[in-house]
């Protein structure tokens, strides 16, 4: 117990970095994913093709490769990011691609007939999107988004490769230093607690959207 209390501050500091990366990625990649999803459905074909290519690249290559590419690769051509920023850039663009695909599916699921009805009522496309389409899309995509959000917490451990002091690194450093499994078990426990919190939040949000069928 004394040992746990001793290593807890460094683990909590790692947790703080993990949560920070998680939160920034989520706040940026969800709106970006919605925008990209709208772009994927655009009648302006070059934009849709470009975004298709982007989604294919992001989903078709490992996130680890993308992290290494942004932090270690881009400096070769003169684009240098600080460690944490590099992680944010790689995570945001990777997750935005997954969210774009999820939202594209959600947008397709809201019937064209509803958009027609809205247009005949004199609502603009923006108003239709805001008041009719997006609220329905959010309900449709919630389970898939929740899955990705849970993956994101776990994927954030990949920043280990950039030397960022996240939760996993904090535990690994302590295990290597003190030759004990306790820090790694604690790391696992903290991930489980974080994911339990997110799962609870997912259920609350799903309940909030269950007022209609």
């Amino acid at each position, binding site marked *: 117990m004394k040992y746990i209390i001793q290593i807890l501050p460094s683990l909590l500091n790692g947790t703080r970095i993990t949560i920070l990366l998680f939160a920034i990625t989520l706040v940026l990649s969800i709106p970006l994913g919605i925008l990209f999803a709208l772009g994927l459905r655009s009648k302006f074909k070059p934009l849709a093709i470009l975004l298709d290519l982007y989604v294919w690249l992001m989903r078709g290559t490992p996130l680890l490769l993308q992290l290494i590419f942004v932090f270690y690769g881009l400096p070769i051509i003169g684009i240098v990011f600080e460690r944490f920023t590099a992680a944010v850039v790689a995570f945001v663009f990777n997750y935005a691609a997954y969210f774009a695909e999820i939202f594209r599916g959600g947008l397709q699921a809201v019937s064209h*007939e*509803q958009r*027609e*009805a*809205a*247009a*005949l*009522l*004199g*609502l*603009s496309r923006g*108003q239709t999107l805001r*008041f*009719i389409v997006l*609220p*329905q899309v959010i*309900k449709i995509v919630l389970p898939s988004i929740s899955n990705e959000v849970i993956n994101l917490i776990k994927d954030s451990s990949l920043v280990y490769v950039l030397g960022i002091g996240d939760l996993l690194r904090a535990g690994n450093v302590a295990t290597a230093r003190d030759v004990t499994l306790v820090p790694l078990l604690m790391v696992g426990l903290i991930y489980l607690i974080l994911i339990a919190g997110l799962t609870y939040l997912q259920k609350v949000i799903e309940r909030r959207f269950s*007022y*209609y*069928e």
Partner: protein
Amino acid sequence: MNNVATRTPILELTNLSKTFANKVIFKNINLQVMKNDILSIVGPSGVGKTTLLRTILGLEPVDSGSFKFAGQVFDPTDHSQNQIGIVFQDYRLFPNLNVLENITLAPIQAQKQTPAAAVQQADRLLEFLKLTPQRKLYPFQLSGGQKQRVAIARALILEPQILCYDEPTSALDSSNKWQVANLLRQFQKQGMTQLVVTHDDQFAQKISSDIFQMG
């Protein structure tokens, strides 16, 4: 019978033609909808009645022909004036909005009415259509007849010059059907022009001032 001298056309379709995938849907349609009339467009299924209605609503382009509204050349794809309202066959209520929100969304957002004014007007319509107890319910909680009346209220609140119905009786039982017929007559008494697309000849005979046969 209407007095011929007082009948003025509000909507005129001239030589409307529409083909789809090389199939002629309709050709050289000439049609006048008189003010305060109930005009029914009848004909068997697949004859192009709904497509004709969709062109009037600006949802389908025509290959040729012209539209006039109250004597002026009219672009049906411009929905900003809300001159023509529609009650769809499947009602198309917004499932994420309750009855009151379904009705007040367009007046508040598109017509920039104050929420208080829109709600007041919506409540008047809900009372008239016997829907007051349902004002906070969601579409999935309503019967077919109730959904249709919400769709009617949603169209009426925008005060259209013409109210159109696509197959208004197709999903209703006989008692609901004649309630709708009575409703249409009440609207007519209040000066509303109505256009009904239906394959139900009996219903059309009962309610119409004029019938346009297709096919």
